């Protein structure tokens, strides 16, 4: 959930490393053909081919074609489905999971895939303290790691310290080949293994494609894995496409040019590209898809940190400001004052959606649409403010609180994201209509981070997190003790009763294995967030992309993007 550029998030969607097996097949007339190539573009050059050590999103996307996990997330339904494991069972206490692996899987070099690879990946890579990987934190619950053991050649058992509901989704973790990496790990060199200087034939996975050529900062070529295990309905081996080429194109304007020229087959649109590309659909032989709201959020938050700086003994937020920011009516007034429709029209060229709930509407199952919504109304906002004694007493255009303090505060956002800057400017203007004096300062991302997690010297921020479909992965944001609980992080104990309730919800929900009961927990959480407004959500960009009309079995979805079922896509 790092803050990212919106442009980047569109690209990210394309690269989500999940694939599905069952597209809605209205395409039975067209028999899939083998062969051909798909040309994609990526904004950043990969920095490493090591999927354990390097966690960049674009590498993850490419490596998601090379490696597979025991499970995967269906790009259409967003459900967890079998992948390298064909079935599993869970003990009654929910802590012991037994996975039965597929027996027909070979690594791309021909060596059979077995339980030993799974045990190796977890015990010697992820849980190895010498290896730099953030995956370890995903598989550590309350400071304890999982116990992973091999029962026989194709059965693996995981013993969890406590019940953990997102466990199956977490099992999408890529499995790496033991036979090639064991020696590297024992020499302590794994951190630096599979870097960009590696011979690509040494990178061996079970996925539908394998790396074949890399030209630094120019392109990455993948070719199909002849040993890939998945078969189509006619029992023919997948994938259909022979070759995938990722061109590294850093500049979005150049990417549009390349797409129009026909050099790339896919382009993730920014709002401003839509009026240019949409009319050219026929002429350019492509189609523009809008799959609805994206996952990258934009929200406004106020600093509610009640602590004092340990060195200077001064409070992080001065007392009178804290009084405003912790006052619910103040936050509600702000929520009413934000003109979401203008933001969508001006900043996103009309291609955005308003966000009311803490989860994106595209998140599917856990999304709760029935939360409190704040319609744009400056009058209502002013009434709310008057109720707490904030209005313009001396007719100078700036409101005061009941102690005579002028309502003036700083508003920061990260300067790298131009769309967010534009959004912040509109919000500043909206807040000025309430009689607030807002000092808007764009900061570099690192400066913003240090304010957020060490100096805490800010009043208001506009931020964004990339959301997902699993609410628990936002645990660190919502638990009052979390370090990303941005409005008041690392609380020793919950400062308010609603924060206490959210803590309880997250602790209970993660232990609840019944989906529907889990959903009730997260529904309640979304209601509380919309009610208490610790984060005032604004708008979501829409996920829009253009794809050349040459692919069969194409089934774009909001979660998976255009190519989530890449191994089943063929060229007409």
């Amino acid at each position: 959930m790092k803050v990212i550029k919106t442009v980047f998030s569109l690209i990210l969607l394309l690269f989500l490393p999940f694939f599905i097996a069952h597209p809605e097949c209205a395409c039975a007339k067209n028999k899939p053909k083998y062969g051909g190539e798909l040309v994609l573009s990526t904004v950043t050059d990969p920095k490493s081919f090591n999927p354990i050590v390097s966690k960049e999103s674009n590498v993850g996307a490419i490596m998601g074609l090379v490696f597979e996990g025991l499970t995967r997330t269906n790009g259409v339904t967003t459900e967890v489905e079998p992948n390298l494991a064909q079935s599993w069972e869970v003990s009654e206490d929910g802590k012991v999971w037994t996975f039965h692996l597929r027996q027909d899987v070979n690594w791309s070099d021909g060596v059979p895939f077995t339980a030993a690879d799974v045990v190796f990946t977890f015990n010697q890579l992820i849980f190895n303290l010498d290896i730099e990987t953030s995956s370890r934190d995903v598989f550590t619950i309350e400071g304890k790691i999982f116990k992973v053991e091999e029962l026989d050649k194709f059965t693996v058992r995981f013993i969890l310290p406590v019940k953990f509901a997102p466990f199956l989704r977490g099992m999408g973790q890529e499995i790496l080949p033991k036979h090639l990496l064991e020696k590297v790990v024992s020499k302590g060199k794994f951190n630096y293994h599979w870097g960009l200087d590696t011979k690509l034939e040494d990178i061996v996975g079970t996925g539908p494609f394998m790396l074949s050529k890399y030209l630094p900062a120019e392109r990455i070529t993948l070719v199909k894995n002849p040993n890939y295990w998945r078969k189509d309905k006619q029992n023919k081996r997948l994938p259909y496409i022979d070759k995938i080429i990722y061109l590294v194109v850093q500049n979005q304007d150049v990417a549009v040019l390349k797409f129009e020229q026909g050099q790339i087959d896919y382009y993730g649109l920014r709002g401003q590209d839509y009026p240019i590309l949409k009319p050219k659909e026929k002429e350019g032989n492509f189609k523009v898809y809008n799959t609805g709201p994206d996952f990258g959020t934009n929200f406004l938050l106020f600093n509610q940190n009640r602590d004092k700086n340990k060195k200077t003994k001064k409070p992080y937020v001065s007392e009178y400001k804290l009084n405003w920011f912790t006052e619910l009516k103040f936050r509600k007034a702000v929520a009413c004052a934000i003109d979401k429709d203008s933001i969508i029209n001006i900043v996103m060229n009309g291609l955005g959606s308003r966000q009311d709930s803490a989860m994106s509407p595209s998140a599917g199952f856990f999304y709760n649409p029935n939360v409190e919504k704040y319609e744009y109304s400056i009058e209502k906002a002013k009434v709310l403010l008057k109720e707490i004694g904030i209005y313009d007493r001396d007719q100078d255009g700036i409101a005061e609180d009941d102690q005579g303090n002028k309502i003036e505060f700083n508003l920061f956002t990260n300067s790298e994201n131009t769309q967010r800057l534009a959004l912040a400017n509109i919000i500043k203007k909206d807040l000025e209509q309430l009689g607030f004096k807002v000092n808007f300062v764009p900061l570099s991302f690192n400066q913003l981070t240090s304010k957020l997690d060490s100096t805490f010297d800010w009043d208001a921020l506009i931020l964004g997190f990339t959301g997902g479909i699993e609410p628990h992965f936002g645990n660190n944001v919502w638990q009052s003790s979390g370090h990303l609980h941005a409005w008041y992080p690392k609380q020793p104990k919950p400062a308010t009763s609603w924060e206490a309730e959210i803590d309880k919800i997250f602790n209970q929900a993660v232990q609840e294995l019944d989906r529907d009961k889990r959903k009730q927990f997260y529904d309640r959480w979304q209601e509380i967030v919309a009610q208490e407004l610790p984060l005032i959500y604004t708008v979501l960009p829409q996920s829009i992309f253009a794809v050349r009309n040459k692919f069969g079995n194409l089934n774009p979805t909001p979660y998976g993007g255009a190519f989530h079922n890449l191994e089943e896509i063929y060229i007409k």
Partner: protein
Amino acid sequence: MINYIIRRLLFFIPLLLAVSFIGFVCINLAPGNYFDSLKQNPQVSQDTIRLYEQKYHLDQNVFTQYYYWLVNISKLDFGYSFAYKIPVFEVLKSRMFNTFILSLSVLLFSWLIAIPLGIYCAVNQYKFTDKLFSFFSFIGLSIPSFFFALLLLYFASLTGILPAGGMHSLNYEAFSPLGKFLDLLKHLIIPTLVIGTSSIAGLQRLMRGNMLEVLRAQYITTARAKGLPEYRVIYLHAVRNAINPMVTIFGGSLAGLLSGAALTEIICNWPGLGRLMLDAVMSQDLFLFAGDLLMISFLLILGYLIADIVLAWVDPRIQYQ
């Protein structure tokens, strides 16, 4: 002369130390460090980040960090890039050739055009052609490179004559050696034009100025008075003298051979060092940045040393003790 060169070479050491230390201080002045980008990922714990920071001494002050780096440098170990997880030198090596090719092409293009053009304009001062070239020079100087690059790329995509960015065609592998060379040349045209244009403009103005100065000197009048043909006056007497300051500039531009031009590289999709280093500075990839800084500064002072030696050779009046 040999003594002079040895003295200059010894002087490299304190200079490089100073440059690299200033580099370390600057990158430390910026808030945060490379691993800050992990902090916004809710799935990464703070202990993990602390572990990384300790491993690379990023939790220490700038002097300690610099000390550890120096100790490694003395063993010729430039360290590992945080982002790429491979030795810094390997990262630089992967882009060095591409940058070198582009810079060389720009160097040849701009010097081979600018010097004759400068001489021509000086000789034909205030004539129509001089004014015309001056006009274009000012355009070349003032047009922003990223805009010029986009303009050319747009033109390329409209006509399809030239490739819209990149360094190799998609089917590059299948070409014959001659085909590969031509393919490379084709891809070089736009970035060379973009970077070359502004430097042609500058160099041309300089050369013209130098030349005008020399043409006003008394020995030129003398040469003409004693009846030397005009071409001998210009090329043998005037140009020889006007070229001295250009030699120093040329020495300085040798460092540019490996420094790259980030903006143009990004827009033209040229896989060079410039954009690599821009990313490294932005993400505070300390050792990669320091390694590159060291390399560029070494080339810069080496370039000036070479320029000084060449200067002594070009102009017999200059002597080093």
